[in-house]
């Protein structure tokens, strides 16, 4: 239980749900003090029918193919049932704070874990509201208008809850995408040593401000760790370079120079070169046509001389 509390509190922080955000959400559903007092008036009626309303929700789900993930798992189902009736009881307490939102997040996480279809959830929630609404209207037979007003106040909270639960479902679904992006970002900035004191930095894909910073940081660290004097930066894999990207590259080059390493940029394609010229961007760095040329130039500057000898196989025969 303690773990779970920590998890949902983390999620709350990750989703940036703060006290201010909660207030904002209340404002968005139009919740007022009058609503709160009307909801308080409903307390006894709703509490008396909690079990019945909860049952409506899950009966509705049971009839849907899309909700099988939740309905077929007994432990999840039991937990959901318990949370749902707690939810209904909390809904009429007319006190909606962090703790209340935390409980909704917990429920949302459970739905997300069970892979509950959002449409199925909305349908079931509507069925539950309909059931509660009917109960309330029955109670207010003498003054239907008052009953309707009270029900509408409760509905505001229901929409507030739907908002939170939907956010959790979407956030959890996007988590996978975020993790993949993170992985790609980490994989895509290798700094390789190809000779003593010579590093190769192949850049592939889109460069944004964030990635440019990561590239620069890892390059600078590699320069220090490998005591590099030359760096060949290959941009063959960079599809387009605009003024912002060019600026990032220039920053990387100057930072490397501050650490005593000379950077050679290679692989500027003809399209990139033309667009740079057309944009009037001056890439004031050493450039060499292709990666091979860049490596050869770097070797020359470092004093290496590559000598071709007859292949080993030919020597032995």
């Amino acid at each position, binding site marked *: 239980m303690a773990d779970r509390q920590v998890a949902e509190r983390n999620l709350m922080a990750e989703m940036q749900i703060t006290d201010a955000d909660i207030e904002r959400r209340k404002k968005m559903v139009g919740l007022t003090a009058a609503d709160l007092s009307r909801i308080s008036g409903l307390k006894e009626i709703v509490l008396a029918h909690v079990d019945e309303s909860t049952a409506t929700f899950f009966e509705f789900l049971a009839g849907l193919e899309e909700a099988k993930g939740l309905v077929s798992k007994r432990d999840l189902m039991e937990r959901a049932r318990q949370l749902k009736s707690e939810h209904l009881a909390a809904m009429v307490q007319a006190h909606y704070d962090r703790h209340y939102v935390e409980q909704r997040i917990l429920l949302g996480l459970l739905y997300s874990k069970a892979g509950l279809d959002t449409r199925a959830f909305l349908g079931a929630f509507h069925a539950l509201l309909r059931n509660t609404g009917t109960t309330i209207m029955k109670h207010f037979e003498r003054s239907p208008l008052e009953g309707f007003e009270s029900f509408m106040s409760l509905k505001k909270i229901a929409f507030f809850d739907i908002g939170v639960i939907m956010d959790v479902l979407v956030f959890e679904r996007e988590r996978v995408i975020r993790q993949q992006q993170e992985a790609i970002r980490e994989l895509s900035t290798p700094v390789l040593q190809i000779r003593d004191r010579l590093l190769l930095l192949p850049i592939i894909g889109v460069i944004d401000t964030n990635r440019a910073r990561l590239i620069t940081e890892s390059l600078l660290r590699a320069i220090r760790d490998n005591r590099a*004097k030359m760096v060949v930066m290959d941009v063959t894999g960079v599809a387009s370079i605009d003024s912002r990207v060019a600026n990032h590259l220039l*920053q990387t080059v100057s*930072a490397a120079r501050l650490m*005593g390493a000379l950077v050679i940029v290679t692989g500027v394609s003809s399209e990139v070169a033309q667009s740079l010229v057309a944009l009037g961007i001056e890439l004031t760095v050493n450039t060499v046509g292709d990666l091979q040329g860049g490596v050869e130039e770097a070797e020359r500057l470092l004093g290496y001389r590559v000598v071709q000898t007859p292949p080993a196989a030919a020597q032995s025969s």
Partner: protein
Amino acid sequence: MPVPILKQGDVLIASIQAALTDHDLLTLRDELADRVGRLRAHGVIVDVTALDVLDSFATRTLLGIAYTARLRGAETVVVGIQPEVAFAMVQLGLSFEGVATALDLEEGLELLRARSQGGRDHAG
């Protein structure tokens, strides 16, 4: 805290040990300018390995040291700029335009040696 200035052959080495005040920097500049002439040094190395920040004033003063030394006949190399410092400097748009930089003291000495040899070859 004053910066010790060591003499190694015809190279002066100023090794900065701790964060410097603006006043310390100016003292270092004057001291180096004086010694370059007096000791007939051909190279100056300023080691900033211990610094975790280089602001615009420090950068400008180091540039000043380099230009002064050049006028007095010595080449200056700034060595030991840390990755974080280098990154922060380019972010702030600061640079050591026209001044040599090297990874560390050893590299700096090597650079000066190569330069003076190149110069001698050229002359001879």
